């Protein structure tokens, strides 16, 4: 049973308060997803807002075949990919500028921020398809079936991508693995 179902039905009927509640429930997850998927490029909060704007516009077409959360992730992945493609075209047009350097470890950071940045850096080193799959599983908490639905690929492909992503991440996260 989709915990968002009642709110989705109300929002699809035009209830903005119900939609606000859906935004509040999923805003943090969407910002995290946008930040990780863009790999430091772009503005994650701006992208997350765009995800909800698109969701509002397409809510009437949501048939409830999957959970709202799964559908929202699919919308988010499309928004990030569209933004990626646009930025790629702009970079080619105005000569490629390198992505912003992640902050070095020398800067004074609080522990939580340092940990988040270390994980984001490791994820940014993965190929796109592996990064998306492992992010949806280990950061966003989607199950394999939900990920398969969000990415429109077979469950076996999802399993393989997540397995390979974790293998590649192990040496990149060596500093954090001991801490658990």
């Amino acid at each position, binding site marked *: 049973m989709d915990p968002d179902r009642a709110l989705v039905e109300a929002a699809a009927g035009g209830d*903005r308060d119900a939609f*606000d509640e859906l*935004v*509040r429930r999923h*805003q*943090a997850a969407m*910002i*995290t997803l946008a*930040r990780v998927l863009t790999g430091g490029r772009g503005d*994650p*909060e701006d992208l*997350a*807002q*765009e995800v*909800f*704007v698109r969701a*509002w*516009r397409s809510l009437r077409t949501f048939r409830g075949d999957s959970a709202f959360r799964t559908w929202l992730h699919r919308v988010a992945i499309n928004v990030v990919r569209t933004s990626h493609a646009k930025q790629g075209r702009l970079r080619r047009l105005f000569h490629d500028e390198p992505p912003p350097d992640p902050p070095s470890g020398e800067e004074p950071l609080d522990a*939580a*921020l340092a*940990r*988040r940045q270390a*994980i*984001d850096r490791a*994820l940014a080193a993965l190929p796109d398809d592996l990064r998306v799959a*492992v992010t949806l*599983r*280990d*950061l966003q*908490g989607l199950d394999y079936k939900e990920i398969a639905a969000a990415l429109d690929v077979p469950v076996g492909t999802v399993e393989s991508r997540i*397995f390979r992503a*974790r*293998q590649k*991440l*192990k040496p990149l*996260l060596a500093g*954090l*693995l001991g*801490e*658990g």
Partner: protein
Amino acid sequence: MQDEDQRLVARVLASRPPDAVRADFVARVNARIDATEGAGWFALADFRTWTLRLAPIAGALVLVGLLWTPASPTTESPATASPAQPSQAQAFTPASASDWQRDVTANALLEAAFDRMGDSGAR
């Protein structure tokens, strides 16, 4: 061992501290929705939107107009007309008709040519 590694990595990833969310995030989303919905209705009345959207169609029509010229005998210039064909102003004679018959024999053709030369000499 491999399973253990997988679990370890998954645990580290799951421990990523969540991103901070601005207090006005919901308000910003609402403002964007209002802006796009408002723009949708106003766009219908905005002549700039219409002219921009119609530009490709107008361009295509201009292109078709430039490329397509109706083939009418009144507009055909003498320079473009086939020089091999007898002009319409020229009088029709059995001799000139025989020039365009495929099955005409060489002798008949010569005869017709001489006849025509004789006609023009007589005029």
